[in-house]
């Protein structure tokens, strides 16, 4: 039998996350877990297993599909949901576009911000009262003040001045019809914690997290992958280099980093010595303005 030897910060973080998930299950009548196939949401699934097995999860999984995803990630998403025998709901930004609720300015523009519309539509359709997400406070400064249970009004808006004080481990997920809670069980985790947890739990990940050869161009100091959605510009020269993704999201605004790390352990070593933040390296859309995440959150982004 295992002993209590060597309990680490990961055990504490895991225990906190399990506690939060169980509070959601205990307090909310119709929660949902946002699952993209990305590393943070894969951690959430493992935490949900630890929180609720041998029972079924007391919530379905929901993916808001931008239509701009890497195939590997979508396949992995489907595979993992099936493996867990849990219900996966997919709602797509493209359907919102057909309905006319999402209007693009340019055909190939990033769709990250449009996810908010589709998410709010899904919340209304299923009457979800809580969305569990894998956001972390270390990701971005608009997140540093985020609650573990974050209150959103009827329009899905986050008002930093109207958040509930959160004391001890007493969470308040009570809402009226139409209002919504976003619950973030891994709020207190850093990127490093996530990678260490993935290693410890031997979690499988979509292949694009690991170093692979990919055609890219270098544009304004960033590495831009060449895909049907992100073609090269005339004067640009395509290179094939070893890269990996630190986050997976909309293809048009997620850039890989140069890396030869092809195992979780090598990624941890790289993460420990990296000099650029996760979003700084890979999210082309956060750089537009110092406060662009804050802006998106106010509009209902999770």
């Amino acid at each position, binding site marked *: 039998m295992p002993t209590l030897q060597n309990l680490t910060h990961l055990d504490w973080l895991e225990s906190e996350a399990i506690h939060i998930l169980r509070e959601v*299950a205990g307090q909310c009548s119709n929660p949902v877990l946002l699952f993209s196939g990305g590393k943070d949401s894969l951690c959430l699934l493992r935490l949900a297993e630890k929180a609720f097995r*041998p029972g079924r999860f007391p919530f379905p999984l929901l993916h808001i599909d931008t239509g701009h995803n890497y195939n590997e990630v979508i396949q992995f998403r489907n595979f993992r949901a099936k493996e867990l025998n849990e219900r996966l709901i997919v709602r797509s930004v493209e359907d919102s576009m057909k309905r006319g609720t999402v209007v693009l300015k340019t055909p190939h523009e990033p769709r990250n911000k449009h996810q908010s519309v589709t998410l709010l539509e899904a919340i209304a359709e299923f009457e979800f009262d809580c969305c569990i997400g894998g956001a972390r406070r270390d990701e971005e400064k608009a997140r540093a003040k985020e609650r573990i249970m974050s209150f959103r009004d009827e329009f899905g808006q986050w008002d930093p001045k109207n958040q509930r*004080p959160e004391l001890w481990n007493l969470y308040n997920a*009570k809402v009226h019809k139409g209002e919504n809670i976003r619950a973030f069980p891994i709020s207190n985790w850093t990127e490093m914690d996530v990678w260490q947890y993935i290693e410890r739990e031997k979690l499988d990940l979509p292949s694009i997290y690991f170093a692979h050869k990919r055609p890219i161009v270098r544009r304004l100091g960033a590495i831009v992958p060449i895909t049907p959605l992100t073609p090269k510009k005339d004067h640009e020269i395509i290179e094939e280099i070893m890269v990996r993704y630190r986050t997976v999201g909309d293809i048009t605004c997620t850039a890989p980093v140069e890396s030869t790390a092809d195992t979780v352990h090598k990624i941890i070593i790289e993460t420990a010595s990296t000099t650029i933040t996760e979003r700084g390296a890979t999210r082309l859309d956060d750089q537009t303005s110092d406060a662009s995440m804050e802006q998106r959150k106010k509009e209902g982004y999770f």
Partner: protein
Amino acid sequence: MSQQNIQDSLLRFMTCGSVDDGKSTLIGRLLFDTKTILTDTLTQIEKTSKKRGMAAIDLSLITDGLQAEREQGITIDVAYRYFSTGKRKYIIADAPGHEQYTRNMVTAASTAHLAIILIDARKGVLTQTRRHSFLAKLVGIPHIVVAINKMDLIDYDENQYKSICEDYEKFAKEIKLSESRTIEFVPMSALNGDMIVARGESIHWYQGPTLLDILEKTTADYAGKDKNFRFPVQFVCRPHASDDHQLHDFRGFMGRVESGSISVGDEITVLPSRYKSKVKSIQLGDITLNKAISEQSVTILLEDEIDISRGDMIIKSNDAIEPTKNINAMVCWLSETAMASSRAYLIRHTSRESKAKLDKIDFKVNIETLGHEIIPNLNMNDIAQVTFKLAQPIMMDAYQDNRSTGAFIIIDESTYHTVGAGMID
């Protein structure tokens, strides 16, 4: 690092002080010197520093907040920051320090093991220092570090430092801060990085530990952690509808060990029903444990089939607490809307909820003078001793004996917002 303790690999601390005391610079310095700040963030800060006409990088910008706050030049809220040393992980709760932000201080303090109380060496012990110390005591933070900052501005004068320490010690005695609490002093210059992570060159007369040395050796404890076993049930797992017939009779009681520990074979009592049974098994995911300790989230299986639901509390049978419907507590009012003494509120205590009615307000603590005042009603940031009558019994301990089972929040029944925080006497 203790190997028997889930928390010692993680320490949560808060910083108390205003921007003028160099609080943001201190946090920036801690993050910078522990190599937590990465180049793109630094580049941003460099740009902003230049834009504001500063010669060197202003480390306080690391903790610069939301656009909404920058526009108004205020800090609205507690921000959480993270760093790690080789030894452990740290979570900083950065709370704005002005009087009107008492609620933020109480929020930040509620999860902290240690409070850094910042004093500007030029100014010494101020009213706000007393206020911060009183709140740290009220919320039961077991370790206090008094950081005497801006030593560079008083030419690193040892005598002045000593006299501030003496002043503080005198005050600490007055409010009985030193009872069951450690208090340590460090002279520092956050601006120059002296005695934060590195010792620096300037404070040669000080032989004690640096701030980080203190953080590294502080134990992550809180009241009641190792004492009586308390297990509020959060969720009951009954997968009887599952395809697996072996699970037909499975009843798992899911929750977090709030204090103490439990082992397989221990005799337990469920409250408020007082049913008794024995622990058959303890599970964490697919691992079976002999014993679960405080702060571990586990699933407990019992020998007997008894009816238990969310909100019940499992304790050891050789221990006793009486479910009660009357509570006397220190309450911090958190809402802009004053308490309406005629209304009913909801109280959330562990995983349990009850309607509550105000019985009486005994007194309010004036956090400037620490004197008691008689008040008719609670307004935002008020701290008062209050008596409530509850509709449902709760299983509580005094807050000073148990940080988990002694705490509750107050929820407005119509808005559902969290409007108050209570600590049971």
